[in-house]
């Protein structure tokens, strides 16, 4: 299995800073166990050189490759591709050891320690590569290329249009009866009940009117939006003229201006739980306020906020708003504004700076905050995606992309995440539609590789992995032992780290491999 490792050291990059002795590094490599060939080349990214070193690897029957001193990202991908194609080397047995990034660059000020540290790093990388397993990734064909969009708001319609422009069949699930002009199929009065399957092959159960239907799809876009009508609280109860801020934006966009004094208030329910800071709202409230004052300088505009944070360029809007005479009133969250019980067109608010109670007359009151859609919880449970503490669908880490959820093939956009303007929602819809379309149009879904595996003899079926995995990959199989659904496994190894019986190992990051690598690195004395 383990025939030997070829170590390729690139001279140009190593000697760049003048701190490394390449020949000494090469001796360290050739003395290390498991290394069958050590080549020092001028430039490993050179096409001709690559062909020569591949020939050398084939002649020495090496099945592993370790390239120094750059990181895998910096080395030309053609090098690894040639090894895979010509020498049939497994992609999981090709590694790079980033000596420049980890040793030369950050220790220029400490040159005497550079060479010994580089040698130790190389030794530990050789220990690691000798212990790697050749792994395979599996491909699964998607049965359909449908894209399902949940919600027919601004974001949802945009997502469906973008995906259908890709030539994919789109289905929009909308709970209301409203007439929707969107490409593909629109299913009014329908809602998502449950979902099965994994990325590329999801099977959804949908309730349409009274009937239940199943729907297969490759990717899903959640655009469930928000629901300001659900806002409850003393102000809403007493007020007839209360609208969400995006209505004002739309009116302005259509060239209409509200008549009479207006108040923009940050949260629809000042007595309830304080709405978490929503960065969109400061900017948009400022934007609307300056626009109104510019067009109609006699209209009174009040911004009643617990806090006004104008970030970045919005600072200019803030300056302009103050100059145009927009009145900013900051209140204490312990003393929320109230509508005058005798007169429904006056808002009573205590200004925090002056500590004076004001009674403001207004014609329309706008909420700069939108309550989350109450259906989000059910959607999140059905699709097994996380929900935030404020009731919005939570996206995955930003490294997965701005509209991606932690589950592959499921994307989220618009107010479903947190309230935002129609314009931003539409842009996000575009992004989500594009990502979903790209995902679905690939026609196949790759998984496997460095994933977790259970040794059933050691498993005590304690359910720890089942409870801990963020992706619901482990389950208790027919044999009464834990098993990992590799289609769901994303290779984080949380289960391997937590398993009390040490029954789970993450391929290529096993306990033995990690400890051996650490020990080898610690063995270096510098």
């Amino acid at each position, binding site marked *: 299995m383990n025939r030997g490792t070829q170590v390729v050291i690139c001279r140009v990059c190593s000697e760049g800073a003048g701190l490394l002795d390449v020949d000494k590094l090469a001796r360290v490599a050739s003395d290390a166990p498991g290394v069958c060939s050590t080549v020092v080349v001028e430039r490993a990214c050179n096409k001709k050189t690559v062909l020569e070193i591949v020939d050398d690897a084939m002649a020495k029957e090496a099945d592993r490759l370790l390239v120094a001193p750059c*990181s895998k990202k910096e080395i030309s991908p053609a090098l690894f591709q040639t090894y895979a194609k010509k020498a049939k080397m497994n992609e999981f047995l090709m590694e790079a050891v980033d000596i420049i*990034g*980890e*040793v030369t*660059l*950050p*220790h*220029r*000020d*400490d040159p005497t*320690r*550079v060479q010994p*540290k580089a040698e*130790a*790093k190389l030794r*530990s990388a050789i220990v690691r590569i000798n212990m790697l397993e050749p792994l395979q990734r599996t491909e699964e064909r998607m049965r359909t290329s449908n894209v399902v969009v949940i919600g027919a708001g601004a974001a949802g319609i945009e997502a469906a249009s973008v995906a259908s422009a890709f030539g994919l069949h789109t289905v929009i699930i909308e709970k209301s009866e409203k007439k929707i002009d969107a490409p593909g199929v629109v299913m009014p009065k329908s809602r998502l009940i449950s979902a099965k399957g994994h990325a590329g092959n999801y099977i959804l159960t949908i309730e349409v009117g009274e009937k239940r239907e199943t729907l297969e799809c490759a990717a899903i876009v959640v655009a469930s939006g928000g629901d300001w009508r659900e806002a409850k609280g003393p102000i809403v109860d007493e007020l007839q003229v209360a609208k969400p801020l995006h209505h004002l934006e739309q009116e302005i966009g259509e060239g209409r201006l509200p008549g009479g004094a207006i108040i923009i208030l940050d949260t629809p329910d000042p007595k309830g739980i304080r709405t978490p800071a929503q960065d969109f709202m400061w900017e948009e409230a400022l934007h609307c306020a300056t626009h109104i004052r510019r067009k109609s300088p006699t209209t009174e505009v009040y911004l009643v906020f617990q806090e006004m944070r104008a970030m970045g360029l919005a600072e200019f809007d803030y300056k302009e708003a103050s100059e145009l005479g927009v009145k900013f009133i900051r209140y204490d969250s312990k003393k929320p504004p109230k509508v005058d019980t005798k007169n429904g067109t006056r808002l009573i608010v205590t200004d925090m700076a002056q500590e004076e109670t004001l009674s403001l007359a207004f014609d329309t009151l706008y909420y700069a905050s939108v309550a989350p859609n109450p259906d989000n919880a059910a959607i999140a449970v059905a699709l097994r995606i*996380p929900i935030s503490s404020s009731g919005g669908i939570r996206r*995955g*880490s*930003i*490294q*997965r992309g701005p509209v991606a959820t*932690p589950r592959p093939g499921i994307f989220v956009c618009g107010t479903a995440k947190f309230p935002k303007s129609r314009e931003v929602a539409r842009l996000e819809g575009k992004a989500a539609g594009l990502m979903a379309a790209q995902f679905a149009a690939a026609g196949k879904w790759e998984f496997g590789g*460095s994933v977790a595996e259970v040794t059933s003899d050691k498993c005590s079926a304690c359910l720890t992995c089942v409870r*801990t995995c*963020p992706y619901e990959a482990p389950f208790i199989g027919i044999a009464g032992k834990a098993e990992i659904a590799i289609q769901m496994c*994303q*290779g*984080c*190894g*949380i289960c*391997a*780290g*937590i398993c009390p019986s040490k029954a789970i190992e*993450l391929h290529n*990051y096993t*306990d033995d491999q*990690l*400890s051996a*690598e*650490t*020990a080898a*690195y*610690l*063995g*270096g*004395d*510098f």
Partner: protein
Amino acid sequence: MADAKPKIVGFCCEKHGTESVDLAIRSGEQYDASVRLVTVPCTGRVDGLHILKALEDGADAVFVLGCLEKNCYYDTGSIEGRKRVEYVRTMLSEVGIEPERVEMFNASSTMVWKFPEIASTMSQTARRLGPIEPRGDTK
């Protein structure tokens, strides 16, 4: 007892952890050469065993660097990682080893200042505490 060349191991997650280190290095930051980084896919993969073995193999201090808890690539990975680190720290204090030798840190890939800070904190700790003293009763 100051140690001129302490041994520090850093288990670094492949996502935000490694990227924050990369960014610091490419921005020209310098840090103590005693820090040895070992890449793991996620800090959730780190087991107390890895930390303890590293200490046994001669490390004076060990740290774990993962994503910010609310922006972890693997959702709950860095929270799980922190739990393991806390567990190891309790174990260490039980056997009379300073728990400060083991620390958990979080960084996002854009926090260029974070890694040099971590390296200097750990290096100071390791230098201040010196090598781990075997307890008298174990001979």
